[in-house]
């Protein structure tokens, strides 16, 4: 049954997944092409200095990308479900309703993780070509909150889309935007190092938020 749900979700996700994969690949290529360019045309010590002491982030292009991926995947997955209340079909499947929702979000989560992990590994590998490990590891620590935001955004977007009422949706969006902004302070590298664990825990907790909206939908609570 999970296989079947996977199949359905995959039909919805596949093009978005492919597009996001290409986008990530494109941005990574762009990032390291410009790093290579900088090394060819500027003094390497000055470039290192700017990275280490001025907080210049050669990877700043990555900042909003996971967020975008999370929002896109959630949209392609859940907007078809609420159009004409198609989610009723899903809830009518002979499976526990929570488990269906968890399987659906699980698949979205896994597809995001695939993009994120593969891109992070490529980011690391290419980083080692140009920079010493200290700089590469610092970069990884700096992009981690952005990736966590991507996952949180996916969870939040899913539950907001699934919420049946606009008046509540708007309140939810306000909270979600406020929450998302907390992840996006990026004026220096590694500033989130001390709260990473909390961010991971909150992100994981949020992964079940879709259940709340699903539950409201299932109970027909329109208020």
């Amino acid at each position, binding site marked *: 049954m999970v296989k079947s749900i996977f199949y359905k979700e995959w039909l919805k996700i596949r093009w978005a997944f492919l597009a996001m994969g290409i986008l990530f690949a494109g941005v990574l290529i762009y990032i390291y092409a410009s790093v290579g360019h900088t090394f060819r045309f500027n003094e390497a*010590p000055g470039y290192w200095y700017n990275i*280490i002491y001025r907080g210049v982030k050669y990877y700043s292009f990555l900042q909003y990308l996971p967020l975008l991926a999370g929002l896109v995947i959630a949209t392609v997955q859940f907007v078809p479900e609420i159009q004409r209340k198609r989610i009723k079909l899903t809830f009518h499947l002979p499976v526990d309703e929570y488990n269906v929702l968890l399987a659906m979000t699980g698949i979205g989560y896994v597809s995001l993780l695939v993009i994120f992990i593969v891109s992070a590994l490529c980011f690391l590998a290419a980083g080692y070509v140009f920079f010493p490990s200290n700089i590469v590891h610092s970069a990884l620590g700096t992009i981690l909150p952005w990736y966590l935001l991507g996952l949180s955004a996916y969870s939040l977007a899913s539950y907001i889309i699934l919420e049946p009422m606009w008046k509540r949706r708007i309140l939810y969006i306000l909270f979600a935007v*406020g929450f998302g902004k907390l992840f996006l302070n990026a004026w*220096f590298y590694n500033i989130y190092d*001390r*709260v990473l664990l909390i961010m991971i825990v909150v992100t994981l907790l*949020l992964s079940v938020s879709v259940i*709340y909206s699903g539950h409201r939908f299932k109970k027909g609570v329109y208020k």
Partner: protein
Amino acid sequence: MIVRLSRYTLILVAVLVMSVYLPDLYWIFFDVKTNTPYLSYSPVDSVFIMSRRGDDGQIFVDADGNTYDRDEYEAKLPFFYYMQLISDGRMPESIHGVKLDPNEIKRNRNMHRIRPYQLDQPLIPLYPLLESESGRVRLEFPEEFFRIQNKRMEFINSVTKKIDEDLTERFTQALIDNGFEFPAKSVFMNPTTRKAFDEGCFIIDGKDELYHVKKAKGQPVVNKANFPASIPIRSIIVSENVLKEYYGVVVSDDDRLFFLTYDNYKPVELPTMGYYDSHYSTVIITTDLFFRQVSIQNNDRIDVFVTDRDYNLLDEYHESWKTRDDYFQGKVANFLFPFTLTLYDGSTTFVGLFTTWNFPLALIGNLIALIVFMFFLKKEERTFKSAIPELILVTVTGFYGLIACLVYIYVPLWRPERK
């Protein structure tokens, strides 16, 4: 279970978000102005003189209450405004028998501002060790950056990305020869080329000993500073300056301030009289032809000490003012917001979840929120027993919790025990 978990998570996130943004929003509308004076010590009549923002713009006043206009103010501070005074033809020839030479004034004039978050910030531990005797007029960045590894001081070439084994070997050996114990605990330096000369870096080794390391004509110059163990070093703000009296400012773990002097690295304590907290105070240290001044700024007060060139205390100034909490707006805020969450608190560059609890005023607000919530429960025909976690939440988080519980309303489980 999972329905509850999802709802409580959303409620907690909402509380978190509100406690960050609502107080901010509130203060955008109702903030109160605090008035921090800028103090200097006048060499002309040996009195503190300050500029501060009055109701009708900038005013200039001294510690005895005399007010001045701008020209008079500038004339009282010739070490600060000597360019202006010379240009106006108002520069005195001498003060207290000391002849004033603009070059000497300039050479003696230094200012170091140390903000608490500068002492705690992320750092990629790669350092450029400048060539201090290059023979060139301007300093240049070396191609190699060093890092202190477990057993050696390693130089990496930024162009080739390869480790310079030769340089690494020479510096590591020089350190070991001077009794240096790997691995190092911290490195302090002033990594910039915008300075008159270079003094390399200061490294604390594995035994808490301070070492001074320079590169001169490509060769290592290592000095053990024999810095007293009674002064645990939190940070050294290295600042090469032409006065050549001290290498920089040492901030100790017990919140004292020292100049690290050229006199065999002997520390000279600057007066702080216990007013300095390196986690919260901003300190401005200035030197001029006559005085050394330490100005300690906190949220609610300023404390300034002036010494002569031999660091004998001459005068001090203390002033405190009302903070937000003392105003009516602050009391309202404390009532509305049981706590405030900020990502930054000034003591560090790192993001944290810094909470300020606004007790006891918040207790009244929380109580009102709780009563409102109880009325809501009654209206929804819910028992208090079924809402214990929510009641606790509202008791602790007040209006935040109330709003969150109303936004994420309770929806009964669709699956009670199946018969």
